[in-house]
């Protein structure tokens, strides 16, 4: 509906003889605002609860210290995101790397499950939470490069644009609309190209960027 209202606005402005008043570029340097407020159409749908093999407590690992979290950076575990189109799931040995050392929680049921997988050398069958249709190719690497490495934003914010505040959840749930218009709404915005300059650019608007 926002689209529609913009068209109406557009028409009204034209009819009234108003010159080109930029509707979007007013918030050229605002890239989403606080986490959870970035949807273009007021749609903040909470996706279904996905039952994972282990109910992974994101809040315990990545949550703020104030809430009892450890503030581990997203990219520490989801390390593939910076160099691959898919963010992937951390390999099991990464979990074990820490949890072998942490004696205090070894007897907890979730950790026991984890260690059992490791003993069997079996990959954990995690389920996809943000599963786009098969004709959509989202590239994590590009977004991470741009927002985290070029612009120096904290990963919790940058990842949160699309994934919501996962650090406050246990297992992740889909928060954003992730519809095409939602993607495009961000690509249409002018973003600063890096942390220091005032030059801006917007995301690609070519269909083949995402669909091929």
């Amino acid at each position, binding site marked *: 509906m926002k*689209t529609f209202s*913009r068209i109406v*606005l*557009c028409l009204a*402005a*034209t009819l009234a003889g108003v010159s*080109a*008043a*930029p*509707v*979007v*570029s007013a918030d050229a340097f605002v890239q989403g605002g606080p986490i959870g407020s970035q949807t273009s159409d007021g749609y903040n749908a909470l996706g279904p609860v996905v039952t994972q093999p282990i109910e992974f407590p994101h809040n315990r690992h990545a949550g703020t210290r104030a809430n009892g979290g450890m503030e581990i950076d997203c990219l520490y575990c989801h390390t593939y995101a910076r160099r691959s*189109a898919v963010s992937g799931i951390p390999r099991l040995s990464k979990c074990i790397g820490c949890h072998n050392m942490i004696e205090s929680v070894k007897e907890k049921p979730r950790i026991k499950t984890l260690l059992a997988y490791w003993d069997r050398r079996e990959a954990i069958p995690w389920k996809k939470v943000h599963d786009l*249709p*098969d*004709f*959509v*190719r989202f*590239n994590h*690497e*590009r977004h991470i*490069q741009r927002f985290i490495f070029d612009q120096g934003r904290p990963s919790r914010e940058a990842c949160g644009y699309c994934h919501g505040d996962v650090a406050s959840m246990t297992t992740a749930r889909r928060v954003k609309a992730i519809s095409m218009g939602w993607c*495009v*709404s961000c690509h*249409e915005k002018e973003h600063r190209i890096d942390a220091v300059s005032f030059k801006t650019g917007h995301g*690609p608007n*070519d*269909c*083949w*960027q995402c*669909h*091929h």
Partner: protein
Amino acid sequence: MSLDNLISNWSKLRVRRPQVDQYKDSPYKWAMVIDLDSCTGCNACTTACYAENNLPVVGKKRFLEGQAMHWLRIERYWGEGEESTQEFPEQGAAFLPMMCQQCESAPCEIVCPVGATHHTPDGLNSQVYNRCIGSRYCSANCPYKVRYFNWYNYPESAWPSPLELQLSPDVTVRSKGVMEKCTFCVQRLTEAKSKARTEKRNVQDGEVVTACAQACPTSAIHFGNIADSSSTVAKMWKAQQVELSADKQKKDMKHEKMPAASEVASGVGASVEAEKLRGYRVFEELRTYPSVVYLERIRSGEV
């Protein structure tokens, strides 16, 4: 999505294309040169295309019905005129690899009702499967007939398990009712561009090639970026005096002005004759401005 779009688009994008300096400021314009003298018609490229782009094998019955899905086909001609005159093909057969010509002014683009095929900033003629509704108008209007329609739901039949494990995850598997065509292996281009952007540079010449160019045993297919004047393909276009935005090549105009046979015989026209270049684009006169330059086949008449 706003009024400034409207205004800026009216002023900025209301331009006639192709124009001479269209890709002057853009980093990429992908193009090809296919040397028909090197092409042996061996079909390595077509098979590579099947492997790279998840093309379905349609089977005998559907092939018979003209429903083949080869994005790249090798055509074999026995002659140029309307009737075959020779008893035996003394100069062999003429092979032509024909795929989407990625026209700068593509007849398919204007007629698609939903904008599923459009021109990308890289000068490619895209086909967006999920937008396509299957009106097939693009195919009807394509002079080269290089667009292929999914007449059946091939994911159901073309890859009996475990053949489906071969499918490339970078290329959408097309279901029934959508049009598809050669993409210049856009998945490779996207990957190369992404890598280059991470490294804060442009894609270099030779860094990315299409699957057909990569496979071609005689290197008859050359692929590259003609926006980069130092690339091999740009040099080849230049050497052949083929210009992207011209519908008639200068050399051909020269050729038309060629001296009469008597003058050639007396040596007057020899210099003009020697300048004969091989580059041409198929159906240039239709003003589709293709991105594929073919180099004429050479045959020695000595024997």
